[in-house]
């Protein structure tokens, strides 16, 4: 057993950390205040660091990183800017990697090189009336000659306003529940694709949660991924990877908040000594540190299983559930340790607190994670739950 990262992974962490502190940190406040997508910065990260195709093969311009290294990158980005971490995570996992694993050679050759080198990808599953319950999707895709015609409304699309390419899920068979869902590659400039402005959110403001309206949106039939009805399986499989990404994002948030809280506790004096000397503060820090390490261990375990090609659905859910709840807990305590200053923008822990909250919601709510865990656990014990 070995819980350490390889030398390469350590160098990667160092590289991303240096870039994040020097180049990313100065951009955060302005973009978060205004909810502005950091298009230029993302472009630089794709070009200078190759972060646009971390998991993709080199033949398409990717970096061919293993999932553990990938988690290292997401964690380090989230330490400085959680919104940027999810922008990068969504692009890499449920866009580039989804196409890489489920696309045909022709689809990959057509879309991956641009997507990896200079474009931004998005994943569109949720609808106003269908979140956790994917079977309730109402968007439809109807075959019409060599096209599919898509109609419906989609929302909560990270990178949604800026994206150049979408993977959109719609029903090709409305009577078949999950098995009637299909996945399509849809270009930004497709006729009938209308992008609505993003939601105004509590946190991760620079990442867009946009909506789409599909009005007789015509998509070439060759842009269907795999086959009709395969959409649900594709989504669930890649969401496992996405959950590791969100888990790593949550770990980065935990690390940032703990570090800030520990530093502040050493500097701030009350009753004649640094507050770090009070057990009330030490207890909070100890709990925060233990939960952070547990979260990190679980996230990298899921990533390690994925890297080995071993089954990791339950483990990804465990990692995401634990890490996201740890992030909310730790950022909450970080504010508490900062007192009134924690409630101001200047100390930034309030930003991490707001950002942390969404990790319990997107890429499968904590409730969905519990459902996955419980069902899988019961199945292992010979019981198929309803």
């Amino acid at each position, binding site marked *: *057993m070995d819980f350490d990262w390889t030398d390469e992974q350590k160098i990667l962490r160092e590289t991303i950390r240096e870039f994040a502190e020097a180049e990313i940190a100065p951009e955060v406040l302005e973009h978060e205040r205004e909810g502005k997508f950091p298009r230029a910065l993302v472009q630089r990260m794709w070009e200078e660091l190759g972060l646009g195709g971390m998991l993709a093969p080199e033949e398409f311009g990717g970096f061919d990183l293993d999932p*553990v290294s990938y988690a290292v990158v997401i964690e380090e980005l989230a330490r400085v800017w959680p919104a940027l971490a999810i922008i990068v995570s969504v692009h890499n996992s449920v866009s580039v990697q989804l196409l890489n694993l489920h696309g045909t050679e022709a689809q990959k050759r057509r879309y991956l090189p641009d997507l990896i080198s200079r474009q931004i990808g998005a994943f569109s599953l949720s609808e106003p009336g269908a979140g956790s319950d994917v079977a309730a999707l109402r968007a439809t895709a109807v075959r019409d000659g060599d096209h599919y015609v898509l109609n419906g409304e989609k929302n909560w699309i990270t990178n949604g306003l800026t994206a150049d390419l979408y993977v959109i899920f719609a029903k090709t068979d409305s009577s078949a529940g999950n098995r009637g869902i299909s996945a399509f590659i849809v270009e930004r400039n497709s006729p009938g694709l209308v992008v609505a402005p993003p939601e105004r959110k509590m946190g991760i403001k620079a990442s867009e949660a946009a909506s789409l309206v599909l009005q007789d949106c015509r998509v070439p039939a060759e842009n269907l991924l795999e086959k009709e009805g395969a959409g649900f399986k594709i989504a669930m499989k890649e969401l496992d990877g996405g959950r590791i990404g969100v888990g790593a994002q949550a770990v980065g948030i935990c690390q940032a908040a703990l570090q800030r809280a520990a530093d502040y506790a050493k500097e701030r004096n009350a009753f004649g000594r640094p507050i770090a000397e009070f057990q009330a503060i030490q207890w909070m820090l100890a709990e925060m540190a233990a939960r952070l390490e547990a979260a990190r261990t679980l996230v990298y375990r899921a990533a390690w299983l994925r890297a080995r090609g071993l089954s990791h659905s339950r483990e990804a859910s*465990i990692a995401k559930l634990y890490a996201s709840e740890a992030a909310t807990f730790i950022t909450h305590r970080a504010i508490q340790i900062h007192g009134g200053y924690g409630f101001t923008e200047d100390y930034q822990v309030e930003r991490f607190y707001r950002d942390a909250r969404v990790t319990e919601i997107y890429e499968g709510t904590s409730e969905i994670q*519990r459902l996955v*865990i419980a069902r899988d656990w019961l199945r292992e014990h010979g019981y198929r739950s309803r």
Partner: protein
Amino acid sequence: MDYALNDEERLILATARELAEKEFAPRAAEIDETGAFPRENVAKLAELGFMGMMTSETWGGAGLSTIAYVAAMEAVSRACASTGVIMSVNNSLVCDPLEKFGTEEQKERYLRSLASGERLGAYCLTEPQAGSDASRQKTTAVPDGDAYVINGTKNFITNGQVADVLLVYLMTDPAAGNRGISCFIVDADTPGIERGRKENTMGIRGSSTCTISFTDVRVPASNLLGAPGKGFNVALATLDGGRIGIAAQALGIAAHALEEATRYSTERESFGAPIADLQAIQWMLADSVTELEAARWLTYRAAAAKDGGGRFSTEAAMAKLTASRAAVTVADRAVQVHGGYGYVKEYAVERCYRDAKITEIYEGTSEIQRMVIARNLLK
């Protein structure tokens, strides 16, 4: 990075599971009920080399990794938590410091028979008035020729009534606080040693926990473990390892409670279907699975850090803090899933619930673990 047991560790786990399920589990309720010390279990563990798992083969141990120890400890504790703590004390609190701090002669005389399981050890640090604060020790050793004379009382001594060898922490310089503490290896049959009655504890009732008093007990100076005044260092180095053992014991208790809750939930019907179909129950199972996994990997991480040879105080404290809480929480939920049946002794979760609590207290309370974690973090 490697999150898997190696072949040898897998074999140890399988062996421990088989022994525990076949031999220990069927008698665990009886041991709990009567409070009898499970001698047969200890003999079986000794046959496999599990009483000195991490001790090198040179000294009669099995020479295994701390990872293997964690795996075996979880399996044993899952069947019988009393047997788990007996094994943990002998391995972590007795054999480990003897190998680390003992002289060749001490190892020959004591470690060999303790690691092989021929003799059983106990660790005597706590006193009626000195628990978390070891500097409050009142037991003393006064030099007298080539011997020391020990006087005082130790309590909450696991294996206390049956142990053959005692590691006793006491004051050789009462004015010096922690720096006045020394550690002695004491044969339990030395005149002047008296063992009190077994404590009537809430859980781990087979652990033979009692008070041991020392009245003018003469011990040769050559039985000093480590230098005089360095006993506190010995105790702390030892406890870091002990915490990994107790974390693993807690994992076993939690895993047992979760298994029982899982099985019951699929068998018990309410509202027309097994209660495993209800989200209220599924949520409890999912949270228990998650907390157990978090605790398990922190424990293995601490074990890997110990095997790596560096410092591992923080890792061990995090593992024990998290695993002991998981044991208490998971056992609590397991009782809840069982409803009224969880409150009666015919169902094992009632015992798990009682056994779990001590893991938050002994070998450093959760409060001490938080102190260790915070201090290292703030350094």
